[in-house]
């Protein structure tokens, strides 16, 4: 690739990164409240009967509504949630024991919205709520309803959710990653040298390495599937896929490194050592941050979003270590040189 092409490629990459950063930094509107509520049910009546809160949406757009109940104990009533606009029209409604939901994005105009929680203490009240809000009536299990006192917290959030923007961001991210990888490879490759290639033995060894990696991925994913079906799932699906890919890649890369089939002839290895070192540090730091924030395990399952960076970081640390081990081994090994 000519120098001019490399400059164009680098400039395009910088422009795309700038574009993505601008989109990412565009302000997102969100509104949230935390309610700590004590509800007493006495003789089939709730005290208080309901709780309300008002949101003022400043800008029209697509919003999702999310609610999380912090108390794991099932109360003796069913909670009905409704979101109505300033004209009294119901925008969203749902009911449940321990209410926890995250809606699809819906269009909301700027204005006042009322968020109401009704505490429904018997089947009649429940059916009336369902009927009013166009939801299915009838309860299979009415043993929930009982007298008592419950104290719980509820977080309700209204947040801007633009799927188009998210899709554009993801596409930009993927393109940036590919362009970055391509740019680094072309920048470290010496175009003038005929040795910027793999020799026949290296190509043959790479074939073996990819084969071993492929079968490793198959074995690992099969093992994880069997394990989770016998003992129960411990992680989200993305985690299983990530584990297979990461471990398979480690097998492939190890075979290539240990058989001198990883680097091209006369390739600048120092750049790779620095690159892998930097990638390892960044991803490991992000992974550790997610663990400390408590994002790694969500609802008793290992989450993909919380552990992806950690897996990538560990993989790059492993590759970096394999490169170092090979370097030390090459240094110690008696080169079969004749004087």
């Amino acid at each position, binding site marked *: 690739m000519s120098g001019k092409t490399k400059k164009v490629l680098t400039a395009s990459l910088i422009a795309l990164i700038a574009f993505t950063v601008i989109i990412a930094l565009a302000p997102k509107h969100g509104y949230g409240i935390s309610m700590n509520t004590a509800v007493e049910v006495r003789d089939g009546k709730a005290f208080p009967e309901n709780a309300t809160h008002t949101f003022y949406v400043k800008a029209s757009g697509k919003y999702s509504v999310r609610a999380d109940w912090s108390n794991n104990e099932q109360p003796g009533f069913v909670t009905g949630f409704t979101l109505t606009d300033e004209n009294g029209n119901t925008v969203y409604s749902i009911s449940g024991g321990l209410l926890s939901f995250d809606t699809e994005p819906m269009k909301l105009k700027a204005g006042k919205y009322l968020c109401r929680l009704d505490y429904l203490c018997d089947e009649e009240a429940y059916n009336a709520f369902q009927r009013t809000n166009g939801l299915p009536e009838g309860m299979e299990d009415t043993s929930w309803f009982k007298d008592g006192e419950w104290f719980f917290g509820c977080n309700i959030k209204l947040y801007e959710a633009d799927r188009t923007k998210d899709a554009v961001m993801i596409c930009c991210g993927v393109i940036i990653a590919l362009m970055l990888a391509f740019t680094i490879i072309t920048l470290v490759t010496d175009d003038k040298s*005929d*040795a910027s290639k793999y*020799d*026949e*033995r*290296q190509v*043959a060894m790479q074939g073996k390495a990819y084969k071993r990696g492929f079968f490793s991925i198959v074995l690992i994913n099969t093992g994880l599937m069997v394990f989770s079906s016998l003992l129960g799932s411990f992680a989200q699906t993305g985690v299983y896929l990530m584990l297979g890919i990461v471990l398979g890649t480690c097998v492939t890369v190890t075979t290539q490194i240990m058989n*001198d089939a990883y680097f091209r*002839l006369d390739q600048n290895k120092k750049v790779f050592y620095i690159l892998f070192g930097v990638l390892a540090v960044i991803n490991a730091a992000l992974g550790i941050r997610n663990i400390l924030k408590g994002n790694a395990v969500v609802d008793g399952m290992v989450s993909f979003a919380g552990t992806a960076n950690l897996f990538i970081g560990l993989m790059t640390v492993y590759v970096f270590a394999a490169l170092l081990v090979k370097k030390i081994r090459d240094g110690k090994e008696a*080169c*079969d*040189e*004749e004087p």
Partner: protein
Amino acid sequence: MKNLKLKAARALLDMSQQDLADKVGVSRQTINAIEKGDYNPTINLCIAICKALNKTLDDLFWE
């Protein structure tokens, strides 16, 4: 099986493995693997090695 003929021919010309590898256009580890008998080169690589060492195929690669 080790290729001692190749090693001897290279030593005769006072060439290191790296020198031969550079001349032929492969990595030093490939020359090492051929001499150790860990890798069987293709006919094209055999011809290139023979030309670099001024030998024939029979001299270097035939039992």
